[in-house]
């Protein structure tokens, strides 16, 4: 494994920082147990740990278990193929037993591993801690040094080292440890920088702990897991480099080494082709074991990873357990949700329902509020109506009836309806626009996907719409990128995108939550106007009762995946029927409610 692989393990983090969040520093002793158990459940982890254990045992017991001394020469058995004579894995070109040498060479490998690990960890962690904690100039200098080290031509330096001090693998491995320390450095620095912002650090500072103590007590704890994970990859890289150096002939010829055995075998490959297999395999398998171990540690320590998906049996069970949908659909309704039930795998093979039998009707021109706290299932219901549920969602039952078709059951109908007849207005304006394309182009692409029309026609249509939603200079905005406009304008753009296809139903998921208070009112007013103009039906998902009071006609209150109350707006506020609704209302009157 080359340096690049070690680094790419780190890049994984940097490129996808969210995908591998560091374990939160709630470190109690019990974590160890959980980690251990998780590791043991993972077959690859078990195999690789077993292999590493074997390697260590072999290294320690080599003198006892090797059939011959590594220096024993039997000229008659030189260049013999594996499995043909007394030398089980064949004889090398000097007449020595390859198997014995491989076993003995394990010691050198283990020593080299330890050296690389210690040096790279100490150097990388120290640097990362200092840089991440103190930031500023320290970080700038340290990062620059790390970059410089990574740019150094490793092999050339190690060879140069060899000409200066002779064959000393431990020294070379120490130097190599420094060369790959930047990987650890980056990792640690990122983690530390993140953790440093945590409240409890400030609390510790306030309570008078010195910087150093803070670093060692708290920050190191956070860094433990990523470093342990990284160790697997560092060891793998170390073995690879060691084998590589020895293969170049820079190892100590007096000491058996895997790479050295490989080199000798390869140079006489025509005479004894079988001889290369064993050393090559040993090196490969050992590196593989460490990499797998690193991966397994990552899965175990950071929680993500192999969650057991819901089995088909469980899903069928869950589906069968559902009651039949009640009440017939309202034929006049624009969209009718009947007995909708959606679940997610709980990581242990079962399905946990998040929407547990929801009935909902929306008529033309009706703004239907869907209210609830977070976790109530309201957003899931909205996404189900749009066919935008995440990949791992399991539909447990129910139907979404729209214009005679069950969109849930008929994927084709869903696709046809989406964008053209049912549109979506998202919550967070900035993250819902493609940052790499101009606004105009996005809108045009979206419109042309829904309706066949020429670019020019689409453009003029959209410009008109942008003006309609209250954007002052539509043409200028058309050519801008999302990052160049404000949140309020972005939300108006998204609304434009939603209505451009001339839909009949709009599903809006908390459309004003992310906006400034002053803009909120404007956007809500806009939505009302659009409904008035076009006779749209709207499902407005929100947790904000103020929004409900402002523009909704009817309200459904959701709690734990079911609708607990459905009323006209005025009726709900005046005389809530369900105790939960009453709770909601009373807390809403509290100034604290946001």
């Amino acid at each position, binding site marked *: 494994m080359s340096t690049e692989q070690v680094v790419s393990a780190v890049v994984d983090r940097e*490129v996808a920082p969210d995908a591998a969040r560091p374990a939160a520093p709630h470190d109690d002793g019990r974590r160890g147990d959980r980690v251990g158990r998780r590791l043991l459940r993972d077959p690859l982890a078990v195999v690789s740990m077993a292999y590493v254990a074997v390697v260590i045992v072999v290294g320690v017991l080599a003198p006892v278990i090797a059939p011959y001394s590594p220096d024993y020469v039997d000229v008659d058995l030189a260049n013999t193929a594996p499995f043909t004579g007394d030398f089980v894995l064949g004889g090398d070109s000097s007449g020595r037993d390859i198997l014995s040498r491989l076993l003995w060479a394990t010691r050198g490998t283990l020593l080299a591993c330890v050296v690389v690990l210690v040096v790279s960890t100490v150097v990388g962690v120290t640097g990362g801690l200092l840089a991440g904690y103190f930031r500023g100039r320290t970080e700038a200098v340290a990062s620059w040094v790390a970059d410089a080290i990574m740019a150094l031509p490793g092999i050339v330096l190690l060879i140069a080292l*060899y000409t200066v001090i002779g064959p000393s693998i431990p020294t070379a491995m120490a130097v190599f440890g420094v060369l790959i320390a930047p990987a650890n450095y980056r990792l640690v620095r990122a983690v530390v920088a993140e953790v440093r912002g945590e409240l409890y650090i400030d609390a510790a500072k306030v309570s008078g702990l010195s910087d150093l103590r803070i670093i060692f007590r708290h920050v190191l704890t956070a860094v433990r897991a990523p470093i342990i994970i990284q160790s697997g990859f560092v060891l793998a890289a170390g073995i690879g480099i060691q084998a590589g150096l020895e293969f170049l002939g820079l190892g100590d010829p007096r000491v058996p080494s895997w790479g050295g055995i490989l080199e000798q075998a390869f140079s006489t490959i025509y005479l004894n082709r079988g001889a290369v297999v064993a050393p090559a395999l040993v090196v490969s398998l050992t590196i593989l074991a460490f990499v797998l171990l690193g991966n397994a540690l990552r899965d175990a320590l950071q929680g993500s990873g192999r969650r057991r998906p819901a089995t088909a049996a469980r899903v069928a069970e869950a589906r069968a357990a559902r009651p039949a949908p009640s009440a017939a659909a309202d034929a006049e309704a624009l969209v009718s949700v009947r007995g909708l039930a959606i679940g997610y795998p709980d990581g242990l093979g079962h399905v946990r329902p998040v929407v547990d039998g929801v009935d909902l009707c929306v008529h033309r021109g009706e703004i239907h509020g869907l209210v609830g706290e977070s976790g109530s299932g309201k957003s899931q219901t909205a996404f189900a109506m749009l066919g935008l549920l995440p990949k791992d969602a399991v539909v447990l039952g129910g139907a979404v009836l729209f214009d005679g078709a069950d969109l849930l059951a008929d994927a084709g109908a869903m696709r046809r309806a989406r964008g053209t007849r049912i549109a979506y207005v998202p919550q967070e304006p900035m993250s819902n626009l493609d940052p790499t394309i101009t606004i105009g182009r996005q809108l045009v692409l979206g419109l042309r996907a829904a309706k066949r029309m020429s670019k020019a026609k689409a453009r003029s249509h959209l410009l008109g719409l942008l003006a309609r939603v209250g954007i002052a200079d539509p043409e200028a905005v058309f050519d801008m990128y999302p990052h160049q406009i404000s949140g309020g304008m972005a939300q108006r753009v998204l609304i434009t995108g939603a209505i451009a296809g001339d839909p009949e139903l709009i599903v809006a998921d908390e459309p004003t939550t992310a906006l400034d208070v002053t803009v909120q009112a404007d956007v809500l007013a806009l939505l009302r106007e659009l409904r008035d103009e076009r006779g749209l039906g709207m499902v407005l998902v929100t947790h904000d009762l103020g929004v409900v009071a402002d523009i909704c006609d009817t309200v459904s209150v959701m709690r734990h995946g079911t609708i607990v109350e459905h009323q006209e707006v005025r009726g709900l506020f005046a005389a809530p029927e369900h105790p939960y609704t009453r709770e909601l209302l009373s807390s809403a009157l509290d100034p604290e409610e946001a």
Partner: protein
Amino acid sequence: MIGFTLRRLASALLLTVAVTFVTFMLIFSDGNAIARATLGETATQEAVDAKALQLGLDQPVLTQYWEWVQGVLHGSLGNSFFTGEPVTAMLLTRLPVTLSLTVIVVLLTAVVSVLVGTLAAVRGGWLDRGLQLLAVAGAAVPAFIVAIFLVLTVAVEWGLLPATGYVPFSRDPVEWVRSLTLPVLAILVGSIGGAAQQFRGAISEILQQDFVRTLRSRGIGEAPIVFRHVLRSAAAPGLTILSLQTIGMLGGVVLIEQVFALPGVGDLAVEMTLRSDIPVVMGCVVFTVLVVVVVNLVADVVGAWLNPKVRLA
């Protein structure tokens, strides 16, 4: 954008200086011994001393480094201690070999890893799992060991392709391809696995983003979403991934050149380091650093350019 580029250039320059300095310090050893080595065993002590003087080996290390830097600033990398050939000329003969290998690998890696990574991220299932396995296996086994296995099977056992040696394109294009096939394959195994896996990660990440869901809600199909939108966003991280792979590959190329007896720059570096032919080694180092710097620079600058936030800043 200009400011960004300039800052990157300055950093690159500083890096080059630092790396060459460290390398020079490390590889310099006993000047007299080097002089003797160039002349051979029968040379008299006077001849050795004269040679040491001629090569400037009697001067302190720092002075020698400074002289070398001055030479570089005037466009000359000096001459080999052993053959007297200009280093630049030696590098130029070796360059096509290393470049052929590197460029082909990078191109193939880019194309294949984008395809495979995207497919794996979008489709999931067995393709995704297979890719993960390949990435792990490929990352695990060092390229030179893959190379040995390839030589053992394809070249020695089956005799399909030459085990070692390089044939320049100008001499015989077909043989050029044949002589590069195994070396390229050896590096590709690890390179594609790693890059595809990371690219898959990047694509996955992007697919989870809000704007993708919104695009879907507009009725845009999966394919246009992936090609027109997702890949655009993935271009910048993709470049970073590729640049890191390329730089990481450089070390492996040296070993590959040894295994396959390709007369490239890496091979030259190894030979010359062992002989302490300092000017040549420094030339190779400069080459390596230049590659690192250029690759980083290009990736950074292009990546930044692709990001409208930076481009228009």
